[in-house]
C-alpha cells in the first residue's frame, strides 16, 4: 500500500511538471490552432539558461533561504527568457503565416524546433549535463513511510500558484477575456476592437513563461538536462494536452496529472522501458473513443 501511495506521489509530482509544459501547448493551440512543436525545445533552452545562471551565480554554495530565493529568481528569469523568445518566434515566424494553410505554421514550428535544438547543442554540448542538486534531499514526511523531499515540495510550491494565477488571468482579467474571445473567433474578436496579434503574442508569452518556469523545476527535480530533452518531454506534455482536451486549461492540468500517474505506475508495475509505450497507447485509445479529450468540448466541423 505504501509502495502504491509512493508511486502515486511520484506520479502526481511528475504530472504537475508535465501539466506546466502542457499548458504552453494548450494555450497556443487554443488560440491559433497550432501544434507548437518547438515548445519542448524552448523549455530545453530555458533549462540551459538555468544551468548557466546556477554556475555563474555559484548557487551550489548557497544555503537555506538564499537557495529558495535564488530558485525564485531562476524561475522568474527563465520564465521571462522563454516567454520573450516565444513572442519573438511568433512575431518572426508564425505571424506572417496567419492566413496560410494549416500545414505551413506546423512545419515552421518543426523548423523552429530544429533551430532551438541546434542552439541547445552549442550551449550544452552533445552529452547530457548534470544539473546541481540545490535542494536538500531530507524527507519531509519522515515516519509515514513515504518519501517527500524538498524537491517534490518545490514542484508543488511553484506549479500550484502559477496555475492559480493562470486561471485568474484567463477567467477574470480583460486580457483573459480577450484571449477567450480570440480563441473562439478571431475575426469577430477583431471586429469588436480586440488587437488580435497582441493577444496572440500575450498568449505566447504566458505559455513561454510557464515553460521557462517548468524548465527550472525540471532541472532541479530531474537533475539531468541535454539538448534532446525537449522532444521527449514535449511529446509527453503534448500528449497530456490532447488527453485533457486540447485548448482547455483545466484539461491540460488533468491530462498532465494522468500522464504522470500512468507513467509512474507503469514504471513501477510493468517496467520502466514500457512506460512510454503505455502512455501513447492510452492516448490512442482515448482519442479513438473520446476524440475531444477528457475535458474538451466537441467541435463540429463547419462547412
Amino acid at each position, binding site marked *: 500500500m505504501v509502495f502504491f501511495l509512493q508511486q502515486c506521489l511520484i506520479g502526481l509530482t511528475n504530472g504537475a511538471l508535465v501539466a506546466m509544459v502542457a499548458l504552453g501547448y494548450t494555450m497556443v493551440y487554443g488560440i491559433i490552432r497550432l501544434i507548437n512543436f518547438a515548445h519542448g525545445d524552448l523549455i530545453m533552452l530555458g533549462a540551459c539558461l538555468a544551468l548557466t545562471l546556477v554556475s555563474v551565480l555559484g548557487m551550489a554554495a548557497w544555503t537555506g533561504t538564499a537557495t529558495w530565493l535564488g530558485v525564485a529568481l531562476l524561475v522568474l528569469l527563465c520564465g521571462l527568457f522563454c516567454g520573450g523568445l516565444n513572442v519573438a518566434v511568433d512575431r518572426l515566424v508564425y505571424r506572417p503565416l496567419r492566413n496560410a494553410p494549416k500545414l*505551413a505554421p*506546423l512545419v515552421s514550428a518543426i523548423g*523552429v524546433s530544429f533551430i532551438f535544438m541546434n542552439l541547445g547543442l552549442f550551449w550544452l554540448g552533445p552529452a547530457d549535463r548534470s544539473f546541481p542538486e540545490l535542494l536538500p534531499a531530507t524527507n519531509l514526511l519522515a515516519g509515514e513511510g513515504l518519501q517527500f523531499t524538498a524537491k517534490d515540495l518545490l514542484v508543488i510550491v511553484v506549479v500550484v500558484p502559477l496555475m492559480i494565477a493562470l486561471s485568474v488571468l484567463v477567467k477574470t482579467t480583460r486580457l483573459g477575456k480577450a484571449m477567450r474571445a480570440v480563441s473562439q473567433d478571431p475575426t469577430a474578436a477583431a471586429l469588436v476592437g480586440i488587437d488580435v496579434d497582441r493577444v496572440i503574442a500575450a498568449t505566447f508569452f504566458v505559455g513561454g513563461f510557464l515553460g521557462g518556469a517548468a524548465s527550472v523545476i525540471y532541472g532541479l527535480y530531474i537533475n539531468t538536462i541535454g539538448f534532446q530533452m525537449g522532444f521527449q518531454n514535449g511529446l509527453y506534455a503534448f*500528449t497530456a494536452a*490532447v488527453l485533457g482536451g486540447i485548448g482547455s486549461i483545466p484539461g491540460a492540468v488533468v491530462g498532465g496529472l494522468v500522464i504522470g500517474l500512468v507513467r509512474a505506475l507503469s514504471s513501477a508495475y510493468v517496467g520502466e522501458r514500457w512506460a512510454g*509505450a503505455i502512455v501513447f497507447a492510452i*492516448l490512442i485509445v482515448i482519442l479513438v473513443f473520446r*476524440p475531444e479529450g477528457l475535458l474538451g468540448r466537441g467541435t463540429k466541423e463547419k462547412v
Partner: protein
Amino acid sequence: MNTSPTATGPSDVTDTGSLRDRMLGFVRERWDFVALVALAVAPLVVPALGGALGGQVTMLFIYCILALGLNVMVGYTGLVHLGIAAFFGIGAYLFAILTVPMYPFQMRFVTAAAVSALVTAGVGLTLGAPTLRLRGDYLAIVTLGFGEVVKVTLRNLEQITGGMKGLNPVPPPGAGLKIGGTDLGLAFAIDPRWFYYLALLTLAGVVVAMRRLENSRLGRAWVAVREDELAAEAMGVSATRVKLSAFAMSSAVAGLAGCLYAASLSTTADPNAYDFNRSIMVLCAVILGGLGSIPGTLLGVALLVGFDTVLAPWADSAIQQWNINPSGSSLLSFSGWRLAIFGLALILVMRYRPEGLVPSRRMAAELHEAH
C-alpha cells in the same frame, strides 16, 4: 476534376527552336526517362558506384520510395502523418523475420517482400480504421504516438526482434539461386551495384505506379477528399474508404522500402533507425520538394540526403583545409549547424514557397489563390 497534373507537360516546347532548345525541352518533358537512363548507365561509367558510393545511392533510392509512400497520405490525401518511420520499421522487421536463419520461414526475397508489404498495409489499416474520424491535428498526434509505441516495442521484445542488436544476418536476394554458374546471392553480397539496380528498379516501379494512381479514380478521390471532404462526400466519394486506402497504400510502400533497407544493410539495424527523427526528415523532404508532386518528392529526398552525405562532409573538409577552425569548435564546423540549416530551410520554404520546390500544379494553384 479531369485536369489532373501529369508529368508530360504541354508539348509546345519542342515544336520550334534550336537543337539545344529541343534537347532542353525533351529533358524537361521526359525528365523521368532521362534520369532513369542516366542512373542506369551510371554504374557502368562511374567505378565509384561499385564501392561505398553505390551503397549511399542505394539508400537514396530507398528513401525516395519511402517518401513516395508518405506522399500518398500527406501530399495526395492531405493527412499529416508523423510516424511513417514506424511502417518503414515494421516492413524491415517483418522482412527480416521472414528471411533470417533464426526463424523457420526463410522465404525468397520477392515472396518475403510482398508478404511484408501486405502485412504492413494491414497494420496501417488497423491503425487507420479507428483513428480516421479524428480531426487533422489529432490524427497527426496519433501517428506520432504510434511511431513511439512501435519503436519501444521493437526495442523491448528482445526475443522476437533482437532488441538493440536488431535482426541479422538478413540474406541478400537470390541467396542460393544459381544463374550461369554464379551464385546470385553472393553477387549481391559482393557488388553493391546489384542492390543499386534492384533499388533503382523498385523505385522506377513505384514511380510508375504512383503516376498511374494519381490519375486513377482512387487518386482523384484522394485529392478530392484533401480539397474538401464534405463536397467529396456529397459527390458520392466515401471519405472513410478513400482515406483508409491512402493509409494502406502509404504503409505498404513504406513497408516495401523497409524490406529493401533491411536487405541492403543485411540487418534491420537497431530500432532507433525507425524513430521520430526519420519520420520527420522524410516529411520534410516531401514538403520541401512539393506536396503531392512526384518529381518534387524525389528532389526533396535528394536534397536532404545530399546535404548529409555530400555537402556537409565536403564543407567540413574544406573548412579543415583552409584551417579556419584550428580549435575544432563545433560552432565553426559546417555539420554542427545541420539542424539549424534544416530548420531555417523549412521556415523559409513555408514562408516564400509553401507549395515546395517542384510543386504539383494543383497545389501551386491552390496555395496562390489566396494572395
